[in-house]
């Protein structure tokens, strides 16, 4: 790979090219269990450098894999064919926060939470809040179309991307979208790039939409003895025309894991807890909370607690925030999925998750965004137990099949990457996958950018 490292050094400087085994080893992974060694890591400092690197890769026919913080949960930034890992974290400037026109311009390596905090200091809100936001990059969020806790009311990353600056797979810089609220000029290339998982272009600049910060928010939790009742309550809330900012569910295994780890006062015998937050104008929020309270009671909630102050609100969310950590402590390895179904199908999905776990003799804790049907069944295993790992693979296979049969989707927010690639045709059909492949071939004739992902054609010739 010396023939690649040399020219790369000319582009970005020797200090920004990593070739030692110890470095490469640490860019072989993201947050999944898939690992492949890159041949070289490059850390560009400008869009121009990104473009030159991609052109060089085309010339030498070496794969380039864009990488943000490597917190992906589908193997997106793992270089399964080796080649160049392009670490974009040096491009981390917030270039503009425009309070009058409600947009911001950022570079892709900006950490999501740093940006959200900066925007909040200006009295505005950037809603997408993936659980990994303290570490993930906005570029990674765009490439995965990341969601978060506020998805129900505020939508996901794609709903906030107004425009992009992109380096194409053949190394030309182009812009999509604009800073205006409306824009119908040309194809909606912004939407094509968002969620393309680094296969159709390297994002080098992002124009993000901002919204005013809601004046008031109130949180509550409702405890249920049956998952089915909790799920009916979710449907009933939405049917009543109420859209809470957040509507989360924790199942019994998760509740117990939390109580073992950082007790949040959740009843260990409860089948499910709904955690709900409404935001907006004060009177409206108070009215909504009263309505939600009534609906939950009617749907059979055993107990409902409305947070009376900031401290109680923090307590409601402490449990949810501890969920993954609590589950992670039960066993060494966690396999986190993001099965998503129409929300009315949550009871069936939860039942299916539990019966699959039973069938394959696995422990599973489920929590997630009940409001948008996006659940996070989390299998608790030990990576050293080969048999268990084989069983978990079969279980996730089963999970995807059932999710789809319920009218759901393979991935609500974590993306397809490698881990779900082989199931893609189940959902899109042969023709759907073929259309994606044609787009890929048209933009990336040599299959340079992040090859082997999303069923777009593995491997260079």
């Amino acid at each position, binding site marked *: 790979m010396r023939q690649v490292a040399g020219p790369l050094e000319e582009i970005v400087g020797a200090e920004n090219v*990593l070739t*030692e*085994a*110890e*470095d490469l*080893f*640490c*860019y072989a*992974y*993201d*947050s*999944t269990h898939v690992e492949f060694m890159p041949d070289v*890591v490059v*850390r560009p400092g400008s869009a121009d450098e990104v473009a030159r690197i991609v052109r060089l890769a085309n010339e030498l026919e070496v794969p380039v894999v864009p990488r943000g*913080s*490597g*917190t992906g949960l589908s193997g997106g930034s793992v270089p399964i064919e080796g080649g160049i890992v392009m*670490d974009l*974290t*040096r491009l981390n400037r917030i270039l503009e926060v425009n309070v009058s026109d409600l947009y911001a311009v950022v570079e892709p390596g900006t*950490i999501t*939470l740093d940006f959200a905090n900066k925007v909040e200091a200006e009295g505005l809100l950037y809603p997408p809040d993936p659980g*990994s936001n*303290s*570490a*993930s990059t906005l570029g990674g969020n765009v490439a995965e179309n990341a969601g978060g806790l506020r998805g129900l009311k505020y939508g996901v990353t794609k709903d906030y991307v107004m425009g992009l600056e992109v380096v194409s797979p053949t190394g030309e810089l182009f812009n999509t979208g604009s800073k205006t609220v409306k824009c119908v000029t040309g194809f909606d290339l912004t939407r094509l790039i968002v969620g393309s998982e680094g296969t159709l272009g390297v994002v080098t600049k992002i124009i993000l939409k901002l919204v005013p910060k809601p004046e008031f928010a109130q949180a509550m939790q409702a405890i249920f003895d049956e998952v089915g009742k909790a799920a009916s309550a979710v449907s009933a809330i939405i049917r009543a025309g109420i859209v809470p900012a957040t509507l989360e569910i924790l199942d019994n295994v998760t509740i117990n894991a939390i109580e073992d780890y950082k007790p949040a006062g959740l009843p260990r015998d409860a089948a499910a807890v709904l955690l709900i937050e409404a935001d907006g104008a004060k009177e409206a929020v108070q009215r909504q909370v009263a309505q939600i309270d009534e609906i939950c009671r009617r749907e059979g909630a055993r107990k409902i607690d409305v947070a009376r102050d900031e401290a109680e609100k923090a307590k409601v969310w402490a449990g949810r925030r501890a969920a*993954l*950590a609590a589950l*992670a*402590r039960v066993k*060494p*390895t*966690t396999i986190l999925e993001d099965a998503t179904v129409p929300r009315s199908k949550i009871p069936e999905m939860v039942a299916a998750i539990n019966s699959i776990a039973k069938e394959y003799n696995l422990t599973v804790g489920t929590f997630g965004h009940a409001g948008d049907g996006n659940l996070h069944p989390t299998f608790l295993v*030990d*990576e*050293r137990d080969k048999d268990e790992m084989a069983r978990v693979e079969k279980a996730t296979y089963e999970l995807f099949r059932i999710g789809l049969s319920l009218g759901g989707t393979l991935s609500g927010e974590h993306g397809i990457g490698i881990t779900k690639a082989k199931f893609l045709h189940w959902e899109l059909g042969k023709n759907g996958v073929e259309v994606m492949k044609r787009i890929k071939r048209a933009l990336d004739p040599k299959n340079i950018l992040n090859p082997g992902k999303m069923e777009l054609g593995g491997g260079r010739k």
Partner: protein
Amino acid sequence: MIDPLELEELVVKCMKCGLCKPACPVFKEVGVESALARGKVRLIKGALRKEIPLTRALADRIYMCLGCRQCFTACPSGVRTDEIVLAARSEFADRIGLPQTMAALRDNVYRSGNIRGEEKAHRTLWTDTLPRETLERAKHAAPEVVYFAGCVASLYPMVYGIPQAFVTLLNKAGVSFQMMGEEEECCGFPLIAAGAVERIKDIASHNVMSIESRAPKTLVTTCPSCYHTWKEEYPRLIGRELNFEVLHSTQYLERLISEGRLKLGHVDMTVTYHDPCDLGRKSGIFDPPRNVLKALPGLKLVELPSSGVSSVCCGGGGNLEMTFPAVQSKIAQRKIRDVLSTGAKTVVSACQQCKRTISTASRSMKAGVKVLDITELVLRSVEAEG
């Protein structure tokens, strides 16, 4: 300290989520994944499982860690990267030896009982300028206190002021005390950080016996790392409780003040307080230093942007100063910027190592930030009272 045998059990807990990223001060400066807690843990796991050859270069990477434990506070899986790193250093040292700087450090301690390899007699040089009466009191036969000064405070003139201030305060408070003088030997903490632990049990027993022969009620250290080692490591290393109490100077000063044994005068100044990692996050001592500062009339305390359990290491931990000095100095410079952001011109710490690193950074940046150890500040207040 953990047993290398437990290593595998600990590294496997890392789920590679990357949430340690915003926490790790070394990663913040270096920017590449191998410097992050996640990267180091992965490299250690890889070397243990022979997925990657254990080379000198790999072992050296594992020294890019302050042992500051900040990653742990951000880690959902409760991965103790600081402890994993220490155990790995010792495990890898067994297999391929120590890095040169660490081998030299070890040889110094083995040969001379101190980290600099200086003559034992040099350990008392800091007392040369103290008044005779002060030292007289230090020879008390049945002392309340034995004061353990530690290598850095005894051997680096830049921080002589700390032990000098502390023993002066003991005098002013009428405390009967002893020092170990030339008999004092390195507590062993730098060896643990180096991964050179083969004689650590002997060192612990030697030090414990030497203190027990003086039969004090209390052992006080001004060094948070010595404190941590005496308090947490020694009982484990010698397999029993110590028969004296171990306190850090901040705790002891808090006690003297609350008992009214120190008369405090006005110190009209605004300061900020830096929590040393070994004192705060690693020993849970956050309130005593603050209580001491609050007791000083006229003193205004403004907190750093990150304080208490999220205090950021000054760069002085984990022997990083010896293994990766350039990274260490960047971390210290960030601390100076944090101090300046509070508006205070003086930062108080409770650690000679913090004082050294932060003062050095202030000087190199021409930032004009003054660094005082809490003992020095309390002495100022006592002297102001007359």
